């Protein structure tokens, strides 16, 4: 797999060095200099369309079978434009299987403080000392305080060697170009990465401006990081890219002839991303919020897996498709959920003066540990309160809730990819079925996916 990487404004191909190092054998990483930057400082053509054309030529010269495209900040907008051309059937771009945007500049005009823009437009026009100070300010403003000194220095050097015309072009027009209609909604499986502390292009902006342009978007936030993520957190970025490649590969496996249509239908229905603000259909908004807080403790999801398990449980309850049994001590499933969550909120309010969802992680965990142990007392003087579950009922409900959550979590194709699960591909439609041949201890079919925890990451 080849990974083409596009850098941020003022950066260069070498911003990817640490990420590439960590992607090991899984990828051949080809980092490119956009026109006006890095070794291409003399190249011209700074508009988004021109940059996309330049990149298209370079990619087609490599003629990769299967490739992915990663774009950081400015590079992300170019990446989206290239992906649009690929999806529109440009033969030179055959083989694009996945895209990663990192603190991406969205297809729409980039949100930017106008004063900052004005200020930056004036940069790099004075003496070397001043330019250097401006480059330093640029890097430090966009990275957290713990950025490695060598990398900070390299970033400053990149800013100083770019063609100032390219800098001006992006600030004045490239960042303002509106590609949102042109890009539309891309089908290529996407990973959208945001730095939690990024000022203008952080998680909210990414969810609002980037995610809607991808029909198959996964979203990840890197904590305690700002805008220069490949420099600040190369390990996290590399891991997320490798995982995305595995998930993209898994989706390709799902689409392959090894998987039956019935299995594929079930998996693809489950792959659809949850709406960020799923309304409750069964439990009500408040109870769903509490349930989300509970399930977050039960299954703390990886940064790039955001399956809204609570909303999926809620939807399962509305269907009324039970699982064939329940604890006799508990009311019917939906009532058990509703009353258990009310009980939890009531207990939280008694102790801490707020709902369960408003508690910090430690308090949530400690309350759930009491539930798990069957000692979260909700009786007064030994009398059960109306509309409360007692400690043993809560314990039983919590077991059911955990079982429901883990079922929905594990059945999700992205989790199955994480587990390196091959069972879905046990033979497609028609006869004969391929099944498995290499089934002994330590044996693996050449095509079987590999667990993330086993992969070279």
């Amino acid at each position, binding site marked *: 797999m080849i990974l083409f990487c596009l850098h941020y404004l003022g950066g260069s191909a070498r911003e990817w060095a640490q990420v590439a190092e960590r992607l090991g054998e899984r990828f051949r990483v080809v980092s490119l200099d956009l026109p006006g930057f890095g070794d291409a400082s003399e190249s011209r053509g700074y508009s988004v369309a021109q940059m996309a054309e330049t990149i298209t030529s370079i990619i087609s010269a490599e003629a990769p079978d299967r490739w992915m495209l990663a774009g950081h900040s400015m590079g992300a907008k170019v990446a989206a434009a290239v992906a649009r051309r690929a999806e529109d059937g440009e033969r030179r771009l055959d083989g694009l299987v996945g895209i990663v945007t990192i603190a991406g500049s969205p297809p729409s005009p980039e949100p930017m403080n106008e004063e900052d823009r004005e200020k930056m437009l004036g940069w790099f026009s004075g003496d070397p000392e001043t330019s250097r100070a401006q480059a330093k300010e640029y890097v430090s403003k966009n990275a957290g305080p713990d950025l490695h000194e060598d990398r900070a220095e390299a970033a400053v050097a990149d800013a100083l060697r770019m063609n100032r015309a390219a800098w001006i072009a992006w600030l004045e027009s490239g960042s303002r170009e509106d590609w949102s209609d042109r890009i539309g909604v891309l089908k290529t499986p996407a990973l959208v990465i945001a730095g939690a502390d990024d000022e203008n292009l952080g998680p909210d902006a990414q969810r609002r401006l980037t995610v809607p342009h991808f029909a198959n978007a996964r979203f990840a936030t890197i904590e305690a990081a700002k805008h220069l993520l490949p420099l600040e957190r190369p390990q996290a970025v590399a891991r997320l890219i490798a995982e995305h490649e595995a998930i993209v590969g898994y989706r390709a496996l799902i689409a392959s002839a090894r998987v039956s249509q019935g299995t594929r239908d079930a998996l693809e229905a489950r792959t659809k991303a949850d709406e960020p603000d799923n309304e409750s259909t069964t439990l009500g908004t408040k109870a769903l919020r509490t349930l989300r807080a509970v399930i977050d403790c039960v299954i703390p999801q990886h940064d790039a897996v955001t399956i809204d398990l609570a909303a999926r449980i809620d939807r399962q309850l509305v269907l009324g498709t039970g699982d064939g049994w329940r*604890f006799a*001590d508990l009311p019917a499933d939906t009532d058990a959920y509703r009353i258990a969550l009310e009980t939890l909120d009531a207990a939280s309010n008694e102790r801490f003066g707020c709902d369960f969802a408003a508690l910090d992680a430690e308090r949530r965990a400690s309350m759930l540990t009491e539930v798990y142990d069957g000692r979260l007392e909700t009786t007064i003087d030994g009398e059960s309160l109306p509309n409360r579950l007692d400690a043993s009922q809560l314990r039983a409900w919590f077991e059911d809730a955990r079982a429901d959550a883990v079922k929905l979590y594990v059945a999700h194709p992205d989790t199955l990819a994480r587990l390196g*699960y091959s069972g879905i591909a046990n033979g497609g439609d028609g006869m004969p*079925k391929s099944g*498995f041949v290499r089934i002994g201890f330590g044996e693996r079919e050449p095509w079987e996916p590999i667990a993330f925890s086993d992969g070279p990451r």
Partner: protein
Amino acid sequence: MILDEMKRYANDDVVDAVVIGTGAGGAPLLARFATAGLRVVALEAGRNWTPEEYPADELAASGIYWLGERLSAGETPQVFGANNSGMGVGGSTLHWGAYCPRADPRDLKLYSERSAGHDWPLGYADLEPYYERVEAFIGVSGPDRYPWDTKRRYPLPPVARNAPAELMQLACDTIGMRATDGPVAVASRNFVQSEDAVRPACVNCGYCHQGCRIGAKTSMDVTYLPLAVRYGAEIRPESVVHGFERDASGRIVAVIYRHDGIDRRQRCEAVFLCGGGIETPRLLLNTGLANSSGQVGRNYMAHVATQVWGTFERETRPNKGYPSSLITEDAVRPADADFAGGYLIQSLGIVPVTWAQQVVRGRGLWGRDLVDYLERYNHTAAVGINGECLPSPENFLELSDETDEIGARKAIVRFSAGENERRLHDHASKLMTDMWQAVGATDIWTLQRYAHTIGTCRMGSDREKAVVDDSGRSFDIENLWICDNSIFPSSLSANPALTIMALSLRTAESYLRRGPRRSNPTHE
């Protein structure tokens, strides 16, 4: 299965027999009756399937499990749903594990041996010829030489061993136990089921419990039921029985069932109730029949089904291959046992949702510990048991005040593992932990679980203490027979289905020998 061409009877036809349920209890006798020329109708609550429909997906396969809600009570409440009871033409055999050990002769006489449990009103010699007939017909794969019964011969060679089986063999070799390929009702090579049907060899796909997509696994819809249909039996899917009509003498003259939302009434000379350990007593209790002994619903038993899991450095990929391809019967009567009876040990592979839910319910993991452990799935393997469970007056099935969608009261199943079960569990846990340690497993943990639904309509020789006699015939109603795991007087350490099938043929022969009361066909 293909039902398009089958013979059909009218509700007004007085058929020779109505069979309720098409699983391991109902299908063999249905086929036997049909081949003997009887006019028989089977009523099946679930739908009809074609094997190609089964997805390789645990959630999407839920259509073959009995999902009518049951209430689980007691200290060790039973998990139902994907576990235990099935639905569809073929009953639980659609999802069963196809593990086919025979009963150990000693297990049939446990009370005589240990003053514990309950003796069967029949002995191994009564079952053996039927075991042989069933094994030959359904195509059981097994070893050349079965160490615990050396004269036994299996019709097919063993199925392939997967990673858990290889590890269990190594563990047994290391600690000095015998082990061999399990007796498995899965075709290890192409198996000629009938002149026009060849069941292909198993391709090690690992989804036995979600329905075999190629018919390599024995289920009733690829074995006995096609035979039954060929000889004129009618199978009516999606037909839920909820009542009986009786004449003044108490004989059943018609079976009431709901199909497409409409109640229908099938007239008949005899009824064979084969609904399994939960639905059979539930129907009898709901209709108030056949319970002069007060034993309907009593003595609910569930096998001790302890599993010991371990993590291995190399990949096990436990989804691959027939899941439980190795067996040892060395613990059927352990020398150091402080309990009555014993257990079989098998190797275990598993599919991931089932596994994860066991981890949650049985290991109690949650949070980061859970998520991290789940990622080790490809490195896990287990050994597990099927062990004796003694009948107890505290374990029984009764009716709830809650009703299902057709107005029948739901079952409450009370089950608390007793002292004997706990001791057997502890013994097995220790032995299997030793086995896994012997082969270098890490992160070893024991899952306490119980499986199968047994008892509840006990067979016996005393009508005061049993629901049916040793041929399965009700003591109270002369034309009612029961054949499923509900009639087991004790649990046995063997998995129940093979014995149910053997009993089914035995009941059929007994009925035929008796000279069944035949109706004069009203229309042919």
